[in-house]
C-alpha cells in the first residue's frame, strides 16, 4: 500500500449527540499524540438545549488537527469529515476542504433520518450536493455483524460503531490501536464483555479499511520536532484548574474556589473539586455574587482564593470586585468569555469582555488583566495570575474563552521545581503594624491572617487612611489613595515580560497584534506570509493591564499595526487611548477565531 506523507491533517468527527463523537475524537487524538505529532482539538457541542435525535440541532462535533510541525489551531477546514448521520453531513459539509473527503455511515441514511436532517432527497445519491470524495461505509451493519456472537443487547452493540469508525481512521493514518485497547480494558474493567466488543469492532474497522479497495493510500504524519519531555492532552479549562491548584501549592497556601456554574466555565470548578487532597476547598454558591464574595472572605482569611465564571457572571461580580480592590486582597478571577451581549451565544467563543474586565466597576478600580493564548497556556497564565495577585495584593482577572476552555492541545508537563516560587509571607510581627503600610517596591500592603494574636484590625469598602487603613473622609487622602491604587497596578509593568515579536525584530511593514485565543490563527497566517517572504510580523499580548513596557517601542517599528480581535475593537481602544497611535482594527464576531483568509483580506491590502 502506498503511504503518502502529510504535514498536517484536520479531521472533524460529527454525529448525533448520542453517537460518542467527543470520545472518538479524543481517542484518535491521544493515539496520534502518542506517535509524537503535535495536536490541537476543539469540540463543538450542540447549542444549549438538547434537540431531537437526528436533527441538525442535535449534531455534536469534534475537530482535531495533528501535524509534524507545531499546529496552532484545530484547523480552518477539515481534510476529513466523519458524518455518522445525514444531519451531521448537512451541518458540516460546507466546511470541508477543497480536496477533503467524507466518511459516512451509509446505514444511517434512512429515509427518516434524511428527512429529519432537512434534506429533500438522499444527499448521497445527488452527486451535485457535494462534489467531494465520499466513502459510504455500512458502519452500523458491519459493527453488528462483527458482534453477532456477542451476547449483549443490540443497543449495546450499536453503541460500538464509533470504534469501527476509529478503526478505519487508524488504518488510514497508520496509527496503532494499542493505546486504545489499553484504554478500553481499563475503562470497562468491570464489564469486560463491553471492552471485548469494542476492541473487536475496532480491529474489524482496521481490517475493513485494509481490505476494502476504497482507500488508495495511507497517510503518514511524522512526529513533530517538539521539545523533549512528558506530554498530556489538556483542555484550557482543565489547564486553568490545574494551574490554580499549582499556584496555591507553589505559594504554600490552600486553594479556595467560590463559583457558580456557567457555560463555558463550569469545567474549571469541576476540575478543581477533584483535587481535595491538596486541601483545596470549593463552594458552589447560590449565585455569582456569592461565588466572588466567598472567595473574598477566604482570601481575607488567608487562602489563595479564586472565582471562575463567564461574561454574565463577571457582570454580576462587578460590585464585589471593587471591594477586593479597595481592601487590597489577592484574588484570581477567571473569565471564560462567550458570545454576548446578555445571554448571547453561550456555547460560542468571543473576546468581548475585555473592556468589562478593565472597567466594569464603579469608581477608579484598577485591576491587572491577563489573557491566555492557548489551552496549555491557560496553565501558565493561571500561575501568572496567582503570582501577580499574591505579590501585589490585588485581584487579577485572567481572560480565557470558550475556544480555549473547551479546546485542547498537547501540554508539556513542567517539572514542579521549574515553576515559579510564589511563597507568601503573612505578617505576624506585632510591632508597628499599620494595615495599609506598603512595601516600597511592590506597593503591596501586608497580609495578616485573622487568628494572628496582636494584629487585630478592621478593613472595609469605605475609603481608608493611607497608613492606618481606618475609614477616612479626608479629600486629599482619597486623591492619594485613588492614585496609589492605580500606581500599584501600573507598576507591575516592571515585573512582566517584554512583548515579543515573531518576525522582523527590527521592524517592517505590518505588525499583527492579537491577544487570547486568536494566537494560533494569527500565528499560522503570519508564518505563511513569512514563508512567502512578506514582511508581516506577529506580537501577541498576554499582559493587557498593564501592557509590557516595550509595547509602544515595538509598534513604532512597523509601518502598519493591525489589531485582530473577536470583538468590535476593544484591545484596539485600549492601545489607542494609551499610545495615541493609528491602528487598523480587524474584527470578527462569529463565535470563532479568524481563518487565514479573513486575515489576508485586511493584511494583503497593506502590503
Amino acid at each position, binding site marked *: 500500500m502506498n503511504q503518502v506523507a502529510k504535514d498536517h491533517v484536520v479531521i472533524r468527527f460529527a454525529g448525533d449527540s448520542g453517537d460518542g463523537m467527543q470520545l472518538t475524537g479524543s481517542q484518535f487524538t491521544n493515539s496520534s499524540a502518542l506517535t509524537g505529532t503535535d495536536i490541537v482539538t476543539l469540540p463543538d457541542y450542540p447549542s444549549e438545549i438538547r434537540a431531537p435525535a437526528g436533527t441538525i440541532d442535535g449534531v455534536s462535533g469534534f475537530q482535531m488537527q495533528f501535524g509534524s510541525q507545531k499546529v496552532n489551531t484545530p484547523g480552518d477546514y477539515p481534510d476529513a469529515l466523519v458524518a455518522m448521520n445525514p444531519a451531521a453531513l448537512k451541518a458540516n459539509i460546507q466546511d470541508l476542504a477543497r480536496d477533503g473527503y467524507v466518511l459516512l455511515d451509509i446505514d444511517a441514511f434512512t429515509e427518516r433520518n434524511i428527512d429529519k436532517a432537512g434534506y429533500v432527497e438522499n444527499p448521497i445519491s445527488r452527486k451535485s450536493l457535494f462534489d467531494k470524495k465520499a466513502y459510504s461505509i455500512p458502519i452500523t451493519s458491519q459493527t453488528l455483524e462483527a458482534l453477532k456472537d456477542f451476547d449483549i443487547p443490540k443497543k449495546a452493540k450499536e453503541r460500538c460503531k464509533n470504534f469501527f469508525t476509529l478503526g478505519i481512521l487508524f488504518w488510514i493514518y497508520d496509527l496503532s490501536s494499542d493505546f486504545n485497547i489499553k484504554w478500553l480494558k481499563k475503562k470497562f474493567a468491570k464489564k469486560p464483555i463491553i471492552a471485548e466488543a469494542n476492541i473487536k469492532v475496532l480491529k474489524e474497522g482496521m481490517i475493513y479499511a485494509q481490505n476494502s479497495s476504497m482507500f488508495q493510500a495511507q497517510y503518514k504524519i511524522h512526529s513533530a520536532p517538539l521539545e523533549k519531555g512528558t506530554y498530556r492532552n489538556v483542555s484550557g479549562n482543565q489547564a486553568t484548574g490545574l494551574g490554580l491548584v499549582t499556584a496555591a501549592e507553589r505559594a504554600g497556601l490552600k486553594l479556595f474556589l467560590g463559583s457558580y456554574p456557567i457555560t463555558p466555565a463550569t469545567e474549571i470548578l469541576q476540575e478543581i473539586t477533584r483535587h481535595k*487532597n491538596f486541601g483545596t476547598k470549593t463552594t458552589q454558591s*447560590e449565585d455569582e455574587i456569592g461565588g466572588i464574595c466567598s472567595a473574598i472572605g*477566604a482570601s481575607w482569611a488567608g487562602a489563595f482564593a479564586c472565582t471562575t465564571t463567564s461574561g454574565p457572571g463577571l457582570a454580576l461580580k462587578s460590585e*464585589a470586585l471593587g471591594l477586593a480592590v479597595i481592601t487590597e486582597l489577592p484574588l484570581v478571577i477567571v473569565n471564560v468569555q462567550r458570545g454576548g451581549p446578555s445571554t448571547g451565544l453561550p456555547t460560542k467563543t468571543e473576546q468581548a469582555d475585555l473592556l468589562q474586565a478593565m472597567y466594569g466597576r464603579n469608581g477608579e478600580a484598577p485591576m491587572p488583566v491577563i489573557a491566555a493564548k492557548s489551552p496549555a497556556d491557560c496553565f501558565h497564565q493561571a500561575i501568572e495570575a496567582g503570582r501577580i495577585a499574591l505579590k501585589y495584593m490585588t485581584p487579577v482577572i485572567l481572560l480565557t474563552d470558550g475556544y480555549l476552555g473547551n479546546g485542547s492541545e498537547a501540554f508539556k*508537563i513542567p517539572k514542579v521545581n521549574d515553576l515559579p516560587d510564589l511563597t507568601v509571607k503573612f505578617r505576624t510581627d506585632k510591632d508597628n503594624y499599620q494595615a495599609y503600610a506598603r512595601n516600597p517596591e511592590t506597593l503591596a500592603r501586608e497580609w495578616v491572617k485573622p487568628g494572628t494574636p496582636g494584629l487585630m484590625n478592621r478593613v472595609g469598602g*469605605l475609603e481608608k487612611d493611607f497608613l492606618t487603613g481606618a475609614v477616612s473622609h479626608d479629600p486629599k487622602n482619597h486623591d492619594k489613595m485613588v492614585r496609589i491604587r492605580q500606581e500599584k497596578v501600573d507598576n507591575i509593568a516592571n515585573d512582566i515580560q517584554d512583548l515579543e515579536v515573531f518576525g522582523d525584530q527590527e521592524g517592517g511593514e505590518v505588525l499583527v497584534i492579537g491577544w487570547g485565543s486568536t494566537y494560533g490563527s494569527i500565528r499560522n497566517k503570519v508564518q505563511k506570509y513569512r514563508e512567502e517572504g512578506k514582511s508581516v510580523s506577529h506580537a501577541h499580548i498576554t499582559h493587557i493591564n498593564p501592557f509590557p513596557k516595550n509595547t509602544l517601542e515595538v509598534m513604532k517599528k512597523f509601518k502598519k499595526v493591525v489589531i485582530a480581535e473577536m470583538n468590535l475593537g476593544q484591545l484596539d481602544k485600549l492601545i489607542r487611548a494609551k499610545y495615541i497611535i493609528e491602528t487598523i482594527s480587524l474584527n470578527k464576531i462569529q463565535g470563532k477565531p479568524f481563518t487565514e483568509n479573513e486575515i489576508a483580506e485586511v493584511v494583503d491590502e497593506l502590503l
Partner: protein
Amino acid sequence: MSEKLHTLTKKDYSSGSDVKWCAGCGDFAVLTQVQKVLAEIGRPPEEYAFISGIGCSSRFPYYMGTYGYHTIHGRALAVATGTKTFNPDLSVWVAMGDGDSISIGGNHFIHTIRKNLDIVCIVIDNQIYGLTKGQFSPTSIKGQVTKTSPSGKRSLPMDPVALALGAGVNFVARTIDRRPKQLAEVLHKAYEHKGFSLVHVLQNCIIFNNGAHDDITNKETRDEHSLILVDGEPMIFGKNKDKAIVLEGLNPKVVNRNFVDESQILIHHERAKEPGLALLLASMRAGKFAGSKTVEKFPIPMGVLRNVEEETYDSITTEQVEKSIALKGKGDLQSMLNSGDTWEIN
C-alpha cells in the same frame, strides 16, 4: 494562645474607636452585650472574625477589638461563607440590619442557613433603612409611611424568623435591644450552638422609626405583648401571668390562664426535633401585621424558638478534604500534573 491569660474583660473586645451611632440608638445595647458575652466566653479576641454589610448596624465590626470586615451591602453572609469554610477555627459572627440581611441580602441569608454554616448571625431589625435616612425595609409594617412609601407601604412585612425556618434554620432566637439580659443569654446559646445561629434583635432607630417596638418595650404594655420563652416551661404571659397559650387543633390560641387546666398550656421545647413548635411560634406575629386578613394578633414570642443540631457545612467540607487525603494521599503536585494519559517526546 497567649501565655499569661489575664482575665478578659469587655474592654478587650472593643477596638476603642469612637462609636458613631445616634445618641439613643438601640445598636449600642447590642454592641455592649456582644462584648460582654465574648468576655464571658473567654476566647482571645484574635480568634473572632466580625463581618458585616452596609447600614448603621453594619458599622459593628469597627467597634470590636477583633478581626473585622465591613463588606458591601447585603453580602456579609456570602463573605462569611468563605471565611468560615476556609478556616473553621475562627469564630465567625455576622451583624447586619434588616435591609442588609433580608432585602438585598436575602439570597445569601436563605442559602447560608440552608448550608448550615457554623456562625452566629445577628440581624438588627429596626424595621427601617437607617443609614439611607428612612426608607421602608422588608420588615416595615404594611401601611407604614416612610420616605419611599408616602402613601403607606404596600406589602406585609417579611419576618426574618419565619423566613429562616422556611429555609431550614436549626437555631433561631428573637430578642430586643431593651432586654439586655435575654440578649446576653441568647447570644451565649447561639455561640454554643454548632451550626447557623440566627439571633433576631428588634432594635429602636430613634431617628427614623422611633417607637416601632413600643408595645413590647413600654412598661405598661410589654408584658401583654411579649411571650418570653423558657425551655421546658409552659407558655404564660401577661402582667399578672394570667394569660397562656394553648393549642386549638393546629393553631395557637391565647386564653385566660384561670379558665384552662395547667396541663393544656403549651410547653416550650427549644430542642424539639420536629419543627412544628418553632413554626407555630413563628406564625404568631404580633400586632405588627396590621392589614393582614389572615394573621391573628398574638404576643410576640421572644427567646430561643428552636435549637437543634445538624452537620455543618464547614465541618463536612473539612471532612471531605480529610477523606480525600486518606484515600488518595496528600496531594503531590508533580503526580497531579503527570496524571491522565501522558506520552514522552524524546
